[in-house]
């Protein structure tokens, strides 16, 4: 039972990091219909920026987090303006390829700046273990769950109550009507990329604390796809639930079934969901059928 509890906590904490990356993905998709294949690289950017701020510059961690998020948002805004904006309205294949190109550029730049070797910095999440009943849990992992949930709740509130959030929902609902009501679409696209980068940066900061800083972090970007398809491409709530389910599934399958099956099970789920319920658990039930 204690093993089960440990697995659950580790699965949930991984799942919440997936959820943070996926939430950014969902925000971009909702606002601009772009599938962002560079989401994993935004996460990677977050881990390296916090390494830069805390270990290389020597800032206290609170300031370091702030600097990381701001720098990540700045990068995303520049990218949106220079790369995505000229392609608004192009066919899907162009939008997919441009984010793939972006991912390649970001990764190349990060490797050029910080080198390909894993780096480490002193974790500022509490390092000890938490003993709950019979189970021994890593405190950092336990703590990462409420942090992620708080950030995701913040995103949800943003969509519900702020002007930009409502504008974003309006654009997702009907772009033409939103335009005619005077909503600035470029501004909303910018905000969407900024938010996606911020949420990915926070995910990256937590990853940096839990597993360290290395180029492999970007691989998580691909895990975003099962998560968002399961949860629904346009739902933040879906990203949270989908992230939790995929994270848990991975650790359970990894432990109880083994054979490296945990690597492929998210994609099997993805195929299954696409066949049965392509809009996911919480997505809007609009899908183009052929």
């Amino acid at each position: 039972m204690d093993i089960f509890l440990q697995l659950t906590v580790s699965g949930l904490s991984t799942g919440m990091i997936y959820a943070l990356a996926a939430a950014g993905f969902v925000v971009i998709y909702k606002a601009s219909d772009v599938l962002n294949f560079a989401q994993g690289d935004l996460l990677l950017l977050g881990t390296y920026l916090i390494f830069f701020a805390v270990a290389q510059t020597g800032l206290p961690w609170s300031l370091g987090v702030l600097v990381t998020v701001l720098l990540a948002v700045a990068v995303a805004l520049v990218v949106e303006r220079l790369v995505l904006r000229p392609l608004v309205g192009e066919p899907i294949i162009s939008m997919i390829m441009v984010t793939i190109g972006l991912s390649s550029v970001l990764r190349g730049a990060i490797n050029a700046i910080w080198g390909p070797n894993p780096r480490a910095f002193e974790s500022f999440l509490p390092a000890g273990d938490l003993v709950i009943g019979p189970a021994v849990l890593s405190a950092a992992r336990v703590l990462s769950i409420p942090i992620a949930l708080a950030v995701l709740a913040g995103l949800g509130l943003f969509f519900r109550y702020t002007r930009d959030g409502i504008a974003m929902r309006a654009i997702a609902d009907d772009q033409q009507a939103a335009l005619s009501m005077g909503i600035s679409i470029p501004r909303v696209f910018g905000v969407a990329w900024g938010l996606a980068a911020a949420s990915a940066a926070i995910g990256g900061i937590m990853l940096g604390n839990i597993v360290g800083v290395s180029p492999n972090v970007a691989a998580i970007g691909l895990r975003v796809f099962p998560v968002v398809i399961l949860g629904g491409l346009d739902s933040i709530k879906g990203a949270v639930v989908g992230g939790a389910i995929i994270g848990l599934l991975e650790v359970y399958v990894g432990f109880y079934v083994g054979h490296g099956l945990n690597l492929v099970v998210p994609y099997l789920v993805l195929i299954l969901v696409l066949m049965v319920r392509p809009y996911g658990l919480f997505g809007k039930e609009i899908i183009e059928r052929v």
Partner: protein
Amino acid sequence: MSMECGVFHTRYESDMGLRPRPAQRIRLVLFALFVLVFPFVASTYWLDLANQVAIATVGAIGLNILVGHTGQISLGQGAFMAIGAYTAGLLTLNFGVPWGASVFCACILTAVAGTFFGLPSLRLKGLYLAIATLAAQEIVEWAMTHWTTVTGGTEAIVVPAPRLFGLRLNTTFNFYWLAVLTAAGTALFAANLFRCRIGRAFEAVRDQDIAASVIGVDVFRTKLLAFATSSFFVGLAGAMIAFYRNIVTWERFTLNTSIVYLAMIIVGGLGSIRGSFLGAALITLLPALITNLGRAIQDTAPQAASLLPYAQQAVFGIVIILFLIFEPRGLSKLWENVKDYFHVWPFAYRRGESRAN
């Protein structure tokens, strides 16, 4: 097909011809001469690159049939090439099937697999299909590395060298002829495919699937046929890699492979055979050019040279982005612009931008 300015066909044969104009024929002959002379003057290094370009051309034409001409986005190119390579390699290695036969089996099996993965296209469109093929890629990748009894897992399988009349075919020089012939044959097949009913149906489905079904195109069947045709050539490219390299390893067929091939057809030009070749050449030669640049500046600027491997990755991305923003129809369109300019020189004329996607 867009009409060309200043070309007046007076006979049906010339109207139907693949390359009706004298200038086109002269260019073709010049290119053929270059291809014939090249292996006798080039070093092994460049010859090896030429072989890679020829293989990539076959794969890129295959992918372009699906993505560029039929409009079905596939991120599963690496998986399909893997199926081709492993089938060809394992058949020859384990069952002693002659290489020609095993290449053919590989193509057929990849076509079957492609059709199977095309089935979701019945229900899914656009980005959902892209995500489904991404999942297919991940699943095949997993099978390659974990289904050890068949694929040997992460170990490479060693493929016996192909022989013809006692001649070893996979030396750089000998393979060149095989690869060039295959690439030329593939290009010729594809060129003719899009001049007949099936190919036109592919393009109709891409441009407007509902309109296509109204004029009597069975959309689903056409899509599956596109998946099958495309995968056939992709499998062929995979099998060529298996016999050229003598070994089959999973690292050659990852998601990254899919991305590289998509980059080839984006940079070359979607829905263009010439584009498939130009894109395959550029994307294959790009790393080699950057490496050579690195060697050149090694002495003068060792600091910069050490950054080159990462620059390679970044440049790859930058090339994709620049083409998408400034010339979404790729190298093929650039070449056409040059031709058009000289064709009616000194008059200014731009061919209409009629072939919109």
